[in-house]
């Protein structure tokens, strides 16, 4: 193996940083967007088909571009935001651009699962639209949201590895520079195992969390 254990540990930390920071930003952007999609849909709480359609198309456009393309296509934007186009920080920008619309979609689908009867009860109680979302829809959807967020964060782990291909740092970077370019099979294997453990860990954590929420 051409890399030291320290190097592996630091790249794992880099990956965790990239994934968690981009995940947080993606939620901050994607969650309100998902809620907006949900409430503006025809027949829903706010019923604004025009806003819905515009938002829907924009999100579809972002969702149809593969991550590797986003990565290079938005380099000028990335540079504008973080001042550089290589390294961990630079990887976070395309990761957010990739995950936020995805999360918006996942949030929308989680919220749509909420029983119409619950909305009817909220309406009958005279709840405002904001109260309906905060007090009724989000709590009822929480368990499903957690499952969907788990899917999104695992997507980000994959994206972070890909970001490594363009010098984004992290475990993916290690695999490319040592495992692939220098034919270091052991490093390659180690990084793959690390990624598998991360994905498994996140999925199990998400499942357990979702279950605890449902069955408090």
């Amino acid at each position, binding site marked *: 193996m051409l890399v030291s254990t320290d190097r592996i540990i630091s790249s794992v930390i880099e990956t965790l940083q990239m994934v968690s920071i981009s995940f947080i930003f993606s939620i901050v952007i994607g969650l309100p967007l998902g809620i907006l999609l949900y409430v503006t849909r025809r027949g829903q709480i706010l019923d604004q088909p025009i806003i819905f359609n515009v938002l829907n198309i924009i999100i579809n456009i972002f969702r149809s571009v593969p991550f590797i393309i986003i990565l290079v296509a938005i380099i000028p934007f990335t540079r504008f935001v973080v001042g550089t186009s290589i390294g961990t920080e630079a990887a976070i920008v395309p990761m957010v651009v990739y995950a936020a619309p995805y999360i918006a979609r996942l949030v929308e689908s989680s919220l749509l699962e909420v029983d119409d009867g619950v909305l*009817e009860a909220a309406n*009958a*109680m005279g709840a405002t639209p904001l109260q309906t979302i905060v007090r009724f829809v989000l709590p009822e959807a929480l368990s499903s949201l957690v499952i969907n967020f788990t899917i999104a964060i695992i997507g980000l782990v994959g994206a972070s590895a890909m970001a490594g291909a363009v010098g984004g740092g992290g475990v993916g970077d290690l695999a490319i520079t040592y495992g692939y370019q220098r034919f270091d099979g052991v490093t390659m294997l180690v990084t793959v195992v690390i990624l598998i453990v991360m994905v498994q860990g996140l999925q199990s954590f998400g499942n357990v969390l979702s279950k605890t929420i449902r069955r408090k």
Partner: protein
Amino acid sequence: MIEFIDVSKQFNRKGVTTDALKNVSLKVEPGEIFGIVGFSGAGKSTLIRMVNRLESPTTGDVKIAGQSLEKSNTKEIRTIKRDIGMIFQHFNLLDSKTVYKNVAMPLILQGVDKGEIDRRVTELLDFVGLGDKSKSYPDELSGGQKQRVGIARALATNPKILLCDEATSALDPETTTQILELLKEINQTYGITILLITHEMSVVREICDRVAIMEKGRVIEEGTVFDIFSNPKTDTGKSFVNTVMHNEVPEFVLKLLHESPEERHIYRLNFVDDSAGEPVLSQVSKKFDVETSVLFGNITQLQDIPFGNLIVEFIGQGREVASVLSYLDSRNIIYSEVTRDAR
């Protein structure tokens, strides 16, 4: 308390227009239990949902305690809704929240302080008999218990009106009886006006004061439970009443009518109070030149009054029978002739 003024509602879905309500006018008085019955699709749900503005009329208006909903803005309607509780066929509870939180929800929405919420929720859960279930989740409860939570929640804000859309339709007969008892108790204890929808006449007979029968978006019959049950006017009304009263003319009587060559005078007589029937009949035999023969009879209970239903044949001259009928009129006895095509 609730006034529907010439309410019509059209639904437009994919170019297809449905007239769910056609010029419905109804008045529900304060403190009464008013029932609406009708077959599936008659427009019952659409009508009840107008009361708390889950649905708005295409034309017409709904007044709550004199206040027009059409003339109220969103904020005013929200305030009116606090005076109206609703319970649902499928309960519509929040599965993610405890029984306590479910009942507290309407109060939380209004920003009532914690101590007050605690006092009120505890009192309500005791009232509906779920004092020990406050920490349970809805999926740990039986259907009847869930509906009790629904009732407690609907009562949280001390409403003046309680709406029930098929509130017992998902429950077994025994649980239904218990829930109906509870609704009756609520009506009597708090004087809350109850508007309920059902397709079961037994529910109406059990607790309603007045009832309206709906068909194809219209109210086709309306009256006190006693009047409707003792003397339904429309075919739909009759078939609903027959589901619980078993007032159908028995097969053998119809056969009698069909097979007999000469005219026969067969009448249905309805008596309030079981003792009233026999004396009148014996009077009839004494006073007039007719013989009476009771072909069929039963007695049911209607709003705590025994209600007798007799099918009687008067044997005698047509003229004599006519005087019998005017005598029955003078005694305020409801009767109707049983004809060959009777139902």
